[in-house]
């Protein structure tokens, strides 16, 4: 009996098991407390699509052997730049998705260049990628605090009415806010299904899956799996690590644009700093390790992680009406999962 339990636990993975149990528990609590399920389902689906691509950005990084991309803010900033420039240049006609498509296209060259440079850096510090990545993320965010003030943006909706620089939050109501969320959206029994958003997320997953089955994708995967084996098969491991980082940065850039449109605002200054941790936590509870990850891990992980946060929030608010407990709970769950993941690092196979 104990053995069967153990084998199942190992198969599913302890973190995934605990989080699933927690998810079911908060769902039951929500039922007992008569929460509005239509609202909860809409919210889970929305946040699932919103955070999905950012979590997906972890997959090529882990597969190429550089570990979870804690330097996600680099990609995020490239995406934000794309989003801002698209609005600044007024590329916001309906045919361009109100600026959504130009935002992605403009962010690509930034993301590719940044990913390449950062990938080269990572090749020089093999073995301590995660720590370096975290602080690279911090540094780039701090650096861009200056950037957001200094960059010569002129669009009246984006800059402070008085003084210099970009605002902290920029509303996207008149541009590409909610374009994907509202695309082909429909309601089932009052629950809102953001069809466009979900299609975009699954489409991204599909593209990455197609890539992972190509010759280059396989080479990337082998480089991360066993660098010595890769070298003996004539694969340039360093090149693939850079490629993995470029892909991760590009997906992160796309991810933040999708996130912004779903949220309805572009958030600058300190906000990019906090994008990496939920994404890392999501793939890890989805079943990935710091050495191996599949696309399914990102999908499952984001669903569980965001599901808990969405459902637990009103439940916790009901239990303790005072204060902002749900926010605290969210931080506890999120940081606990990251902590668990970090203890797994270097644990070998």
């Amino acid at each position, binding site marked *: 009996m104990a053995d069967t339990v153990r084998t199942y636990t190992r198969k599913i993975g302890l973190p995934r098991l605990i989080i699933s149990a927690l998810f079911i528990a908060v769902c039951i609590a929500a039922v007992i407390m008569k929460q509005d399920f239509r609202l909860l389902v809409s919210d889970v689906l929305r946040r699932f699509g919103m955070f999905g691509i950012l979590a997906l950005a972890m997959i090529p990084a882990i597969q190429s052997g550089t570990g979870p991309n804690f330097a996600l803010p680099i990609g995020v900033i490239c995406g934000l730049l794309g989003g801002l420039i698209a609005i600044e240049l007024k590329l916001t006609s309906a045919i361009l998705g109100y600026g959504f498509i130009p935002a992605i296209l403009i962010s690509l060259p930034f993301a590719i260049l940044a990913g390449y440079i950062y990938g080269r850096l990572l090749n020089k510090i093999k073995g301590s990628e995660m720590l370096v990545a975290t602080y690279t993320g911090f540094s780039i965010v701090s650096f861009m605090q200056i950037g957001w003030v200094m960059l010569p943006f002129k669009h009246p909706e984006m800059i402070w009415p008085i003084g210099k620089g970009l605002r902290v939050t920029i509303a996207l109501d008149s541009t590409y806010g909610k374009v994907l969320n509202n695309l082909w959206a429909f309601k089932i029994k009052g629950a809102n299904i953001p069809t466009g958003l979900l299609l975009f997320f699954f489409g991204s997953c599909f593209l990455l899956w197609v890539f992972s089955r190509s010759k280059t994708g396989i080479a990337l995967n*082998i480089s991360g*799996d*066993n660098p010595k*084996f890769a*070298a*003996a*098969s*004539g694969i340039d491991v360093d090149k693939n690590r850079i490629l993995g980082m470029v892909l991760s940065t590009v997906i992160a850039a796309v991810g933040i644009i999708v996130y912004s449109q779903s949220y309805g605002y572009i958030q600058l200054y300190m906000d990019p700093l906090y994008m990496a941790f939920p994404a890392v936590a999501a793939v890890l509870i989805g079943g990935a390790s710091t050495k191996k990850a599949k696309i399914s891990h990102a999908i499952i992980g984001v669903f569980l992680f965001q599901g808990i946060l969405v459902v637990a929030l009103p439940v916790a608010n009901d239990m303790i009406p005072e204060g902002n407990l749900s926010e605290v709970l969210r931080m506890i769950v999120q940081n606990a999962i990251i902590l668990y993941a970090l203890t797994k690092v270097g644990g070998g196979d």
Partner: protein
Amino acid sequence: MKKEAVLQMKNIEKAYYGNKVLKNISLSVKAGEIHALLGENGAGKSTLMNILFGMPVIHSTGGFSGEVRLNDEIVEIKSPFDAMKLGIGMVHQEFMLIPDFTITENIKVNRETTTPNFISRTFKSKRLETLDHRAMDSDARKALDTLGMGIDEWTKVAGLPIGYMQFIEIAREIDKSGIKLLVFDEPTAVLTEGEADNLIAAIKGLAAKGIGILFITHRLEEVLQAADNITILRDGELVATRKKKETSVIELAELMVGRKIQILNKSGANNGGTDQREKAIEIKNLEVKMPGEAVKGIDLDVYKGEILGIGGLAGQGKIGIANGIMGLYESTGEVLINGQNLVLNDTKGSLRAGIAFVSEDRRGVGLLLDASIEYNIAVTTLQVKNKFLKRYGFFKQIDGRGVRQHAQQLIKDLDIRCSGSQQLTRQLSGGNQQKVCIARALTLEPNVLLVSEPTRGIDIGAKKLVLDLLLKLNKELGMTIIMTSSELVELRSICDRIVIISDGGIEGILPPEAEDREFGLMMAGEYKKLLGKEGM
């Protein structure tokens, strides 16, 4: 006193998991005697020493049988600490020194001379006492003087020549009070000839002071230079004990290698007239910077359709040759494949030139342990030759069905025991893992197959299967095979010619049926010297 045996080991037997590695070994070392222990890699020397020092690996695998006597008293040595207390010391092959400490500190580490102070008295702890540097320095001085070393005892170890480090190790052992027996584990392996001579002189000096010396080596000349008596082990058995005066380098070489070979089903057709045959590979002045297995300039021709064996002791550079040709370690020189110049340090180029490699590091280099058998077999060929790809619109994707069919065919052909082509290679036994590695190499359809240590770490039954497979590939497909192995028996059972590597160079090339002593001499690196001496 002079005649008393310091150490006697009687009827020692040891098995690891039912596999006997020591069979009825007896050994005796007298006070003041230098006793040499001689044998190939894997002959059982290390296991015997592990028993003597009570290493945990012995006790955790069920202990041993037989008795160990020190000064004619039966002793039970349960840990290296016991051995130290009984007066047995060891000078390690790899130096265990702390670079940033002075010589004195290294000699005295964890055995420091201390004087009580205020804090240690308060807490009644010996561990808080002050170090008595003056006493320690004078002890160190004494030990260094015993060895005839003029170096200052307060010099830091970092940056000292290797020869000095060896002496500091010895000084540490002789500084221990009541040392009765000192074991040297291949002490000259990393030393230059001059340093080695100094060391042997020092060892002789120690023996003259009445310490018993056990000297492990496979340099035959040194044995005769230093030792009084010589014990030879082979495959865990005691082959002979000889007095120095009664033996010769040639006899020792013969005893070390031993005749234990049945020539397998060799046709012998490949042996004649090598001069007219086409060359598959020509190696000219190849140097490979592989750590621990450096190749220092090799010229070698490999003929089409032969199995060439590369043998030699560990660390001499035999492993480096295949790794160098494959471009896995930085190499210089010239390699011609079928007359075409091969660009070195380019693994992909080597693979494209029709060379496939089965690495000696099966689990580290040879396999993706968390991937399926079929994936392991196909990926290298997919990467190098663009096979197993199928076009879907704009994209080329891995052809899952093609990979599976190919893998299933090879699983059948090579008789890989598995639950199916999707099983993870981590779950396979060593022999089957090796077959997956060979299958991966064969999928490349190579002209030349490089196989390193194909039977390392797999059981005897599987060994024979792997060797038979190589022989079959050679005979039926005419594949040129270069097999590197530490096990001479294996090389002699399937190879057409055997190259023996010593100190990064070729010591000689022998037919498999050459005499044992020739192999022994070559492996010990004595062949050329001896040939030189006996007049050319």
